[in-house]
C-alpha cells in the first residue's frame, strides 16, 4: 500500500495551512492530554478486589438460580383452573425469573468490566484521513481512464437511451400496483369509488332503527325523556363480518335521544326530522371519527372523548367546544305504522371527518 513507505505519516499533521493566511499561529492550543490515571479502590485494596470478584460470581450464580426458578414457576403455577388469578401468578413469577436472570447477567458483566478488568488506557495511533496527493491523483486517473475506455461520456445517445429504458421499466409496476385497489363490482357498485363510499351509508328511507348490537326495533314510546339509545340500521344487524359489517357500522352508528320538544331549536326545513322531541344524530365525530356518545342528560351536550369536541343537541348538534369543524349530521326520523322508529331518508351529508371532495 502507498503509505507503507512513509513510517512517520501518522505523526505528520493532517492539514498544512497554505501560505497566505491572515493569521499565522505560532503557538497553537494543544489538544488536551489524557487526565492522570486514577487508581480504583479494587486496584489499591486487595480485599476490595476479592469483594468485587465475589459479587460478580454471586450474581452469575443468582442468574442461574433465577433461570431455574423461571422453569419451576412455569410448572408450579399452571394456568388450569380458569381463574384469572392463575394467569396473573404464572405471568408474574415466570417473568420475574427470566427478568432477574438476564438482569443479573448484565449487572455482573458490567461490574466485572468496570471494577475488575484492567482499566489502563491505551493510545492507538490513527492514519490521517486525507489521502496522500499521489493516491488522490491516481484515483482521479482511474476514473478518467474508465470513462475513456467505456465511452460513457462520449457516446451521448447510448447513454440517454439507457437512462430512458431504465426509467420506463418502472412505469408498469406503478400502474399494476394501482390495480390492487378495490374495483366497482355488480354486487358493490361503489367499491372502487372512495368518495361515494364516504358519502353513502346504509341508512335509506324507511330503514328501521334497531338496538346496537342485538338488532331489536325501537318504538318511539320506549325512548323516554333523558334516554340515550345506541342505534344501527336494521340491515346492518344482519350483515356478517366478512361482508363488511365493521366498515358499514363505522359510518352508520347513530345516537337517539329524547328531549322536551320546547327545548329543541329547529329550523323550519328540518322541523320534521325529529319526532316529538326524539332526535337522531350520527355518532361519528366530524373531527377525526371517534364515536361521540357521552351524552349529558341535563345539559343536553354530547362530548367526544378523543379530543373533547362538544356538540349541543338542542341546537342541531352544533359545535360548542373543541376542534370539530362541523355539527354532527342529523338523521331524519319518523315512525312507521306500527310505531317503530324509521329513517325518513339517509343522511343528507357525508358523516364523519372532512375530506377533500366533501363540498
Amino acid at each position, binding site marked *: 500500500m502507498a503509505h507503507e513507505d512513509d513510517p512517520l505519516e501518522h505523526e505528520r499533521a493532517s492539514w498544512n495551512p497554505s501560505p497566505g493566511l491572515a493569521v499565522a499561529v505560532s503557538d497553537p492550543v494543544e489538544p488536551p492530554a489524557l487526565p492522570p490515571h*486514577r487508581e*480504583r*479502590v*479494587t486496584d489499591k485494596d486487595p480485599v476490595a478486589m476479592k469483594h468485587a470478584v465475589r459479587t460478580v460470581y454471586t450474581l452469575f450464580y443468582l442468574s442461574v438460580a433465577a433461570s431455574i426458578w423461571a422453569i419451576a414457576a412455569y410448572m408450579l403455577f399452571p394456568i388450569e383452573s380458569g*381463574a*384469572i*388469578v392463575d*394467569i*396473573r401468578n404464572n*405471568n*408474574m413469577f415466570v417473568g420475574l425469573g427470566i427478568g432477574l436472570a438476564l438482569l443479573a447477567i448484565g449487572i455482573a458483566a*458490567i461490574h466485572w468490566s*468496570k*471494577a475488575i478488568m484492567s*482499566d489502563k488506557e491505551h493510545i492507538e495511533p490513527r492514519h490521517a484521513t486525507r489521502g496522500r496527493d499521489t493516491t488522490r491523483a491516481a484515483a482521479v486517473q482511474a476514473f478518467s481512464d474508465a470513462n475513456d475506455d467505456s465511452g460513457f461520456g462520449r457516446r451521448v445517445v447510448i447513454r440517454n437511451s439507457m437512462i430512458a429504458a431504465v426509467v420506463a421499466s418502472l412505469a408498469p409496476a406503478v400502474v399494476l400496483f394501482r390495480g390492487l385497489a378495490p374495483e366497482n363490482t355488480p354486487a358493490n357498485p361503489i367499491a372502487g369509488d372512495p368518495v361515494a363510499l364516504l358519502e353513502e351509508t346504509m341508512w335509506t328511507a324507511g330503514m328501521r332503527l334497531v*338496538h*346496537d*348490537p342485538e338488532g331489536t326495533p325501537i*318504538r318511539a314510546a*320506549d*325512548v*323516554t*325523556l*333523558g*334516554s*340515550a*339509545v*345506541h342505534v344501527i340500521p336494521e340491515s346492518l344487524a344482519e350483515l356478517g363480518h366478512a361482508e363488511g359489517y365493521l366498515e358499514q357500522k363505522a359510518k352508520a352508528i347513530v345516537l337517539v*335521544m329524547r328531549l322536551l320538544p320546547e327545548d329543541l331549536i329547529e329550523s323550519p326545513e328540518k322541523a320534521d326530522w325529529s319526532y316529538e322531541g326524539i332526535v337522531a344524530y350520527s355518532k361519528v365525530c366530524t373531527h377525526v371519527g371517534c*364515536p361521540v*356518545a*357521552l*351524552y*349529558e*342528560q*341535563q*345539559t343536553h*351536550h354530547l*362530548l367526544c*372523548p378523543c379530543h*373533547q369536541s*362538544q356538540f349541543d343537541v338542542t341546537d342541531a348538534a352544533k359545535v360548542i*367546544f373543541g376542534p370539530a369543524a362541523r355539527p354532527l349530521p342529523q338523521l331524519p326520523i319518523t315512525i312507521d305504522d306500527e310505531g317503530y322508529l324509521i329513517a325518513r331518508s339517509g343522511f343528507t351529508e357525508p358523516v364523519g371527518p372532512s375530506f377533500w371532495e366533501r363540498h
Partner: protein
Amino acid sequence: MARETKRRSNGRRSPWAAAALIGIGLLITGGAYAGASAAMAAGTDTAVASGLTVDDGKKLFQANCATCHGLNLEGSTTGPSLYGVGELAVEFQVSTGRMPLQATAPQAPQKPAQFTEEQILAMAAYVQSQAPGPTFPSEQTLDGEGDVARGAELFRVNCAMCHNVAAAGGALTEGKYAPALGTTSALHMYGAMVTGPQNMPVFNDLTLTTEDKRDIISALLFLQQNESPGGFSLGSLGPVSEGLFIWIFGIGGLIAITVWITAKSN
C-alpha cells in the same frame, strides 16, 4: 471515673424525654377519644327503634330534605321536584351519600351516608307513596349470575364511553365525571341505570331489558371480584397511567443504568 459513668448527676434531661412526653400525651388523648366515641356509638345503637314506618320517613324527609325539595315534594328554586322519582332513586341518592347535598358543585359527590339503612328505606317508602316511580328490582336481577360476556358487550356499547371499559370512571365536561364502579353495589348499579342520576342518561327497561341489566351487573361484579390478569393495572386508566409509569420509572431506571455503565469505576 466521672467521664465513663452515664449517670446524669447534674439533673440534665435525657434527649428522649421530650419524645416520651409527646408520646404519652398522644396515647392518653387518643385513648380517651376512642373510648368516648365507642361509648357514644354504643349509646346511639340502643336508642334506635326497629322497623321505621312511612310516617317516620315523612318526618325524616321534612326535617332533612324539604328545605330544597319542598314539603310536598314539589321542589323549590334550590332543588328539583321529586314527583315520580320513586323509591329506587331515593335509595340510590341517599345511600351513596350524594343527598343531602352540602354544597353546590358541577356534580353531587359521593360521601358517607348520613342515615341508617332503615331510615333510608323509610324515606324511600314515603316518596314512593306520595308519587310512585321506579321500584326496587327482584333478587334475581341483582344476583350476578347473568351472562358476563354479553353483559360486558352491552357495557362496552352503552356505558364504557363514560365509565371506561374497565369501569374505572371517566371525565365529562366542566367538572362533571362518571364515577368508578369498583365498589358499587348491585342495587346501586341498577338504581343508577334506571333513574339516570344527574347527567347520566336514563336506561329504562325498554332500552336495556331487566335481563340486559342483570347481565351488565354480573359483568361489573365479575370485574370487581377478579383481579386484572396482567398484574398491576395502574387504575385501569390505560395509556395515560401506563405511559406515566414507564416514562418515569422505566425510562428513569434505564437512564440511571446507562449513567452507571458509563461512569468510571471508583
